[in-house]
């Protein structure tokens, strides 16, 4: 394989609060290659958003701090850059869009002005040229009559349109990486599909890589090439999207998949993974998933499993990955009789 565009190694971002050290991101590694979509999946509080903010070094400090690991982008360590160099990368090389299109645009400027700001910041274009580019970007993200829309304020637009404007801002300087932090969570379902389609279209056209942060497995199945499943600040499974859905090797991923409602299973109640995400100040000893794991054994309580290759580049953080693979244990129902 070629060099990855963006590579995280053992990234650790901790928050130093009065209640103790919150290990929100605790040793996360993954790589993003040019042109692909990598989905980072996990429940609320699994550290996926903090991971994405860490890449751009936007974690609020204090209390947050990146305490270890490295983030390499095109061979450069982003953690070693000066703030000014980092600013030159944000928006130009690596861009980001957010969950809430309602609040991620500044209410006091027109959409055009906000897109133009990014262009002026990074490319030093004059206002007139930047305006032409802004209109072009708005057309690019599928906004009709962009010549008029460019002078409208965010409150005059719908949520889906605002998210399109946000995407236009993020892509105005043609970055090679786009981090999309739950870009469709706040939108209704039909708009979600449109925005995802748009992102895929732009990804192909601009040849950029997308780091898609989401908790929605449906979104993952539709758009991602590879998946990193996060739990309690760590990656627990890392594989191609097909393997994640067909041959998962980790009981947490299996539990997530089992909790999806299925057509034709109307008699069954929705499955849930018992218990809650552990308190990040006091993670359980051993495997962090063991208190909720249906197939946990004695070893899981004391020993920390490593993220290891369980066959063909499929990484999982479970002692029993091989048993799951061979079908010896059911990672959802557990050892004994299947529970209803």
């Amino acid at each position: 394989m070629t060099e990855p565009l963006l590579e995280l190694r053992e990234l650790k971002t901790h928050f130093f609060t009065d209640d103790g050290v919150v290990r929100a991101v605790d040793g996360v590694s993954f790589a993003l290659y040019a042109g692909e979509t990598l989905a980072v999946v996990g429940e609320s509080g699994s550290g996926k958003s903090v991971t994405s903010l860490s890449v751009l070094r936007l974690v609020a400090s204090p209390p947050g701090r990146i305490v270890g690991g490295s983030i390499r982008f095109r061979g450069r360590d982003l953690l070693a850059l000066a703030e000014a160099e980092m600013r030159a990368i944000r928006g130009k090389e690596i861009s980001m869009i957010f969950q809430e299109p309602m609040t991620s645009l500044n209410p006091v400027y027109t959409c055009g002005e906000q897109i133009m700001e990014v262009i002026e910041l990074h490319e030093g274009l004059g206002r007139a040229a930047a305006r032409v580019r802004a209109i072009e970007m708005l057309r690019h993200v599928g906004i009709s009559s962009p010549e008029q829309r460019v002078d409208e304020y965010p409150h005059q637009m719908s949520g889906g349109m605002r998210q399109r404007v946000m995407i236009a801002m993020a892509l105005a300087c043609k970055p090679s990486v786009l981090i999309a932090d739950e870009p469709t969570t706040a939108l209704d379902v039909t708009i979600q599909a449109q925005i995802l389609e748009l992102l895929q279209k732009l990804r192909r056209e601009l040849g950029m890589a997308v780091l898609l942060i989401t908790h929605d497995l449906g979104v993952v199945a539709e758009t991602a090439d590879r998946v990193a499943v996060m739990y309690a600040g760590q990656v627990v499974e890392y594989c191609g999207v097909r393997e994640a859905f067909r041959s998962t090797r980790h009981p947490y991923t299996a539990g997530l998949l089992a909790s999806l409602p299925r057509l034709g299973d109307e008699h069954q109640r929705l499955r849930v993974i018992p218990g809650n995400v552990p308190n990040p100040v006091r993670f359980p000893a051993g495997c962090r998933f063991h208190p909720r794991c249906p197939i946990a054994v004695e070893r899981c309580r004391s020993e920390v499993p490593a993220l290891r290759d369980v066959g063909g580049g499929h990484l999982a953080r479970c002692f029993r990955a091989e048993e799951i693979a061979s079908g010896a244990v059911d990672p959802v129902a557990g050892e004994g009789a299947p529970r209803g």
Partner: protein
Amino acid sequence: MAGGVLLILLYSLAALAPFFAPYAESDIDRDRFFHPPTPLHLRDADGHWHARPFVYGSRGGQDQTYEVDTSRRYPLRWWVRGAPYRLLGVLPGDRHLFGVDAPGRIYLLGADDAGRDVWTRLLFGSQVSLTVGVVGILISFSLGLLLGGVSGYFGGWVDTLIMRGTELLLSIPGLYLIVALRGVFPLDLPSQQTYLAIVAILAFIGWAGLARVIRGMVLSLRQAEYVLAARALGASSLRVIVRHILPNTMSFTIVAATVAVPGYILGEVFLSFLGVGVQPPAASWGNMLNAARSQRVLTSFPWILLAPGTAIFLTVMAFNFFGDGLRDALDPRKTLGGRG
């Protein structure tokens, strides 16, 4: 909005003071100390009507008591030639809106202790008293916005330092602080420099309160997603504060500034009243009030007190009404209702 109209009127009068005033700023008449106001007449003592208003001459002058001399009529003349001046500091001219032929004198609001026309001095005094507020506000609000913005945005020790500074400033009683600071400058400054000193003093004590409020607003605004979005697209901290956060506090700031102007006007009045502000023969509303301190002036020559007193009262009320009007007009619950 009546306040706004009155303010426009007051500021126009101040700007064009030399034209609206029949005399020069310190035109002394040694024969007419404390001359009472000369009423305008249309009908003379013999019962004849005149198309042109006129004033009577006066006799006496011993012990500042005057008798109306109905044998001498001085008709009011429009657009008369008089003391030369430079309008707004540049336009030369010698025309005055109205006047009477010498040796008659027109004292619409009476004369002061040096026989100077109170109406004239009121107009020239307004140049000082009305601008001190606006210039002071401009300086102190720039300071308050920037320091409050920086304090709220960065937090941590920067915040602590700036906020303890404002507390120190706010904990000292305002009027004593003004006087103490006045002590820093020599007492016998030329009037131009005294004016600057007053503005500097008032601005210096005025920014603290605003900085605290702005800090609070910035603390909440910096959590907004558009701030994170702006940073994710490569904006620097200063840019985020100045372009993205502070404009969102503008509706508050504009109202606060309008309501704060009277404080500055009263501050100048206070300093001049104590005799450490603008020094005669230069006029300001404060030193005009200062002339009305004694019992004798109050009882015998009440116009000395009433003229500047009324002017100050009207101005302060006008600013307060104008500020209230602005507050209603800019209230987001009224203008942005319905959405979100």
